[in-house]
């Protein structure tokens, strides 16, 4: 069983004058999960203040990030790593400030330009409308006793304004409206405006130009294209700046964020006037090494291993509040590691319980493979999964690729050795005209297939997913798998509780459920024998009574802990076991689809033989498309349902979760190369 790694608590104490080296050394070991100090936990100690260099660094980091945003430098932009020494000297020689000045001057230019372009565009829009009227622009203003208004309307206002004022209008249509200019005496202003308002008048600002509107429009357009050209130039400059500085920006962002993080460590630890104390969790097997490492690297610092935490809850209760929770460090090999993702999707395991990743790693691909169970579908799964594992680093995709790869391998094994199927057709099988089912033996005319598969496949031709003789077998098989899977889950629950509280407590809390489960399974088995297989009542009586006794014992054990739940949950046990029949059911549903599609397509192919090449191509394309559909559905249904069996049936029985993941102080450099890496 895989438990999270054993953890030890260490205390690092030293004088404040060495705190920078101590923090640096901690980061270099990369194995210490810092415990946040709580105020008043130790007399004479308070939380520290950030290191002096931290505020300057965070100010610079802010500048760098805003520059990156302005220049359009994203996470995906590829940059070259820069040597650490170089970036450090650049940062300390005020490079950040110099580059900021350089970039901001160009950015200011860009802002001015874009503002100008907006203004010009607005003027252009007004002029376009004004040019519909044959009035010079300087004629719109400069009067003493009359006022003018020009704007767009949706209907012709002339009838309402007749006799009050002079109206000039472009051709006003009902659909698009038009432009109108009115000139009236000042005392008629209100009357005119209200008449205009009825026609949805909206005023156009008249640009400060002279001469005809169309001449002004041409001028504005010229200015606009000049501005656009300038803009292009500035964009080019920005692009050049981006190219020039991107390596520095990325590298310095990384370096500065590391500095900021390290500079703020004192806020999380206890400090007094002259000294500091840090508490942290370290994997037990490296604790001694970490102690020696830090003591050797930093003068005047003392490291002590305080305790190695066991799994018992008693130790948790006795511990001080801030030392109660131990971080969980997954303790898995390379393959199981990939299955930590579904575990984490639920929750991070607690320090005191089994990490279910290994169970998921075994059963998830197994169930997936069993549901697919087809050589033809398994090969693309294996290829796609292997390719995904090789190419992607994104954890979501990796998790999917892992399931596809290992699930594909199981699907191949089941397809080849158990079902004897490829693309929904059996390898072995006779065909008589009128049958709906084809076999590869018949299609390819390979009469030696039966002798090849003899001894490999059950019954010589494999389990027939839709054959009446085999359905009972498949259902029973999946129920038996369910019984084993669930029994394992109950055992894990007992094991967890034994770790946490000892066996007696575990037996009282979870043992009853193991017994109830076994009793219930026995009773149901005998009942099925009686009702479905028609065994005589006498032959099932004794096992049934034994089952009932075990069940009763389990329920009695459970009652003090769970009350009525102990009885009410019993049908849930049957439901849980029957839930595994989905393994068989999903396999059957896929086989059913494949059967129908093969019947259609192969019929078309045979029919198309005499019809020419085009009919054949259509038939083959349809064949490929339909099988691709089953294959895609396979990912969804088989993948999700096998995951569900892990989450809902398996993990709910024993898994509590809610732990914190072990996250040691560690520097991850991607964009900067430290001197050590180079050597």
């Amino acid at each position, binding site marked *: 069983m895989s438990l999270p790694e054993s953890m030890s608590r260490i205390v690092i104490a030293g004088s404040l004058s060495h705190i920078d080296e101590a923090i640096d050394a901690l980061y270099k070991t990369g194995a210490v999960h810092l415990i946040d100090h709580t105020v008043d936990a130790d007399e004479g100690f308070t939380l520290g203040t950030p290191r002096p260099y931290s505020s300057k660094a965070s100010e610079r980091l802010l500048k760098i990030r805003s520059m990156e945003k302005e220049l359009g430098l994203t996470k995906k932009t590829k940059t070259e790593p820069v040597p650490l020494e170089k970036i450090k000297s650049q940062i300390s020689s005020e490079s950040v400030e110099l580059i900021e000045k350089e970039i901001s001057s160009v950015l200011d230019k860009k802002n001015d330009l874009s503002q100008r372009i907006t203004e010009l565009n607005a003027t252009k829009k007004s002029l376009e409308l004004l040019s519909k009227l044959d009035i010079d622009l300087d004629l719109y203003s400069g009067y003493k006793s009359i006022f003018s208004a020009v704007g767009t309307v949706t209907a012709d206002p002339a009838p309402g304004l007749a006799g009050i004022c002079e109206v000039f209008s472009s051709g006003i249509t009902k659909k698009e409206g038009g432009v109108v200019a009115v000139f009236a005496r000042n005392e008629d202003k209100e009357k005119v405006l209200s008449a205009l308002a009825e026609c949805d008048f909206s005023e156009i600002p008249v640009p400060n130009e002279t001469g005809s509107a169309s001449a002004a429009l041409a001028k504005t357009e010229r200015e606009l294209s000049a501005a656009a050209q300038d803009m292009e130039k500035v964009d080019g400059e920005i692009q050049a700046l981006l190219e020039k500085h991107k390596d520095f920006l990325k590298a310095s962002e990384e370096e500065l964020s590391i500095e900021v993080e390290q500079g703020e460590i004192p806020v999380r630890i206890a400090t007094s006037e002259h000294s500091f104390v840090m508490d942290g969790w370290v994997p037990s097997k490296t604790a001694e090494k970490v102690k020696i490492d830090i003591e050797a690297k930093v003068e005047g610092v003392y490291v002590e291993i305080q305790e190695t935490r066991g799994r018992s809850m008693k130790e948790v209760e006795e511990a001080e509040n801030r030392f109660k929770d131990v971080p969980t460090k997954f303790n898995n090999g390379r393959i199981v590691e990939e299955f930590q993702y579904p575990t984490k*999707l*639920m*929750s991070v395991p607690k320090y005191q319980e089994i990490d279910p990743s290994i169970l998921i790693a075994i059963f998830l691909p197994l169930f997936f493979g069993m549901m697919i169970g087809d050589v033809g579908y398994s090969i693309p799964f294996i290829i796609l999964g292997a390719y995904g594992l090789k190419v992607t680093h994104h954890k979501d995709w990796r998790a999917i690729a892992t399931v596809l790869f290992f699930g594909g391998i199981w699907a191949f094994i089941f397809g080849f050795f158990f079902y004897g199927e490829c693309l929904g057709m059996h390898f072995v099988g006779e065909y008589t005209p009128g049958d709906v089912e084809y076999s590869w033996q018949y299609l390819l005319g390979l009469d030696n297939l039966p002798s090849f598969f003899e001894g490999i496949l059950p019954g010589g031709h494999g389990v027939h997913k839709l054959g*009446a003789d085999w*359905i*009972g077998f498949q*259902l029973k098989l999946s129920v038996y798998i369910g019984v084993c899977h669930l029994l394992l889950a109950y055992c894990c629950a007992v094991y967890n509780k034994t770790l946490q509280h000892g066996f007696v407590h575990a037996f009282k809390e979870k043992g009853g459920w193991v017994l109830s489960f076994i009793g219930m399974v026995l009773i149901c088995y005998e009942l099925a024998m009686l009702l*479905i297989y028609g065994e005589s009542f006498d032959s099932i009586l004794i096992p049934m009574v034994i089952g009932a006794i075990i069940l009763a014992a389990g329920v009695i054990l459970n009652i003090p802990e769970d009350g009525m739940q102990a009885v009410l949950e019993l049908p849930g046990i049957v*439901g849980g076991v*029957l*839930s595994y*029949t*989905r393994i068989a*059911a999903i396999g*059957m549903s896929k086989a059913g689809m494949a059967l129908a599609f093969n019947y259609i397509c192969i019929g078309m192919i045979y029919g198309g033989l005499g019809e020419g090449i085009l009919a054949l191509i259509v038939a083959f394309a349809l064949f490929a498309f339909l099988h691709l559909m089953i294959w895609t559905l396979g990912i969804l249904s088989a993948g*999700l349902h096998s*995951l*569900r069996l892990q*989450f*809902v049936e398996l993990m*709910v029985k024993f898994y509590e979760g809610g732990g914190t993941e072990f996250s040691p102080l560690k520097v991850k450099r991607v964009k900067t190369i430290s001197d050590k890496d180079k050597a």
Partner: protein
Amino acid sequence: MAAAEAAGLIAVGAGLAVGLTGLGAGIAEGNVGAAAVGAITEDASLFGKAMIFMVLPETIVIFGLVISILAIFVM
């Protein structure tokens, strides 16, 4: 004739078993799913729990499927 009738009735029963349980599961899952999506949007860490609640009603239709398979092939 009677045998054919019985076979037909079994087929109808099997269809009803899958169809009605599917309907029930669909209604239940629709409600749960809507709430689950809402919850996940607020807090993505609820995915695990939401997924469990989401697939709980599905068991109903699996039972229906099992009953119909038993009806067709075993009875």
